[in-house]
């Protein structure tokens, strides 16, 4: 599973970081989302799916590795 983020949309709510700090991080100067990895480790897949669903700015997009 791959994940992408749109920093322009992000409102720095940090919900994704709370769900998976292995995949998501926040920029130091403004809290906007940054990805630690693009390929989601299998152990983090559920958390990243939740992050996509919960993100208030709809700034997270998932793509399956095969697709």
């Amino acid at each position, binding site marked *: 599973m791959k994940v992408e983020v749109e920093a322009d949309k992000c*409102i*720095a*709510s*940090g*919900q994704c*970081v*709370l*769900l998976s700090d292995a995949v998501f991080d*926040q920029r*130091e*100067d*403004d*809290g*906007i989302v940054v990805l630690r990895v693009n390929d989601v480790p299998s152990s983090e897949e559920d958390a990243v799916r*939740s992050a996509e*669903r*919960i993100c*208030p*700015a*709809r700034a997270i997009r998932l793509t399956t590795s095969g697709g």
Partner: protein
Amino acid sequence: MSRPPGCPFDPPAEFRDLRADEPISRVRLWDGKIAWLVTRFDDVREVLADPRFSADMTNPGFPSHSAGVSVTRQKHPTFLNMDDPEHARHRRMLTRDFMIKRVEALRPRIQRHVDELLDEFTAGPQPADLVTGFALPVTSSVISELLGVPYEDHEFFQRQSGLLISGETGADEALEAFATIREYLGGLVERKAAEPAPDVISHLLEIERAGGLSRDELINMLNLLLRAGHETTANMIALGTLALLQNPAQLAALKADTSPAVVANAVEELLRYLTITHYGRRRVALEDVEVAGRLIRKGEGVVAANDSANRDPEAFGDNPDELDLSRSARHHLTFGYGVHQCLGQPLARVELQVVYPTLLRRLPDLRLAAPVSELPFKTKNVFYGLFAMPVEW
């Protein structure tokens, strides 16, 4: 619509039928205006995520909460009532100060505030008021420190804030309270300009000096942070404690396991169950938009009922009207949804994650000192909560 008698934690009972039979309907507001009421979880999220719905209160169709709230927010707008791109520009000035890492770094200090305030609270006579004796001091001391506002002034700003947030304050009285608090903050900002410190006021002054913000905007922003930062979480502290006391099995479960993950989950469920932002999130349509099969026309107001959405069985499973601290409720809409979702949510979470377990550990015999039916609930305020909560321990 009002809450069902004897069920202080439940939103109006009509929501259940509306969600099932009429997910979008017309409601008459306090000022006689008609607005759309949206009650299902999915629809509430759609409305709040859609930029075709505006948060601009100066739009004549905006469904405002009360005369006092309406007039002060129109006269002194903050990013709360702006749309993008202005909203994003203002909000991003503050996101650094409320990001997870920074707030997590405050956790030990928040714990210390809570410990010290509980020392003071328990040293006093019983019964005592949990709201004024503990909940408000905790949240006021934390937000004051973060912003750089002297905590000694908390009685003053709590009183002014109370006037501004009450649904019963008239327009003139609200404007007067607003002017008083703005004058106070103006003086404070002047002093900070001369003596900067590592706090939010000094950070905003840097942005002002760089031309990103006018002094007037800075003061409005500060006023919003100060008020939103203490009133909301204080309501959650008292109301959440009451909900736990009224649900002994849940209380026992939380006492038995205060590991961080369990506490964090419990806080999300309390946020969902209580939904203190109980008058819905308000918007006005900028163009014709279809929601739940009905056409909302340009200029019409929408009340996106997040308290109803938080009790939607489609989103939270069977028994959404029960408090179940083991429920997975992370997707609740108490902080709103979309670009306006609460800026201070990381701070609120950490405060609540510290407060509940500390309170239960320090006061294991905590109990209510008055019947629930006699407690003064803030039914007409912007945020739901308790004016007072007498307790013994």
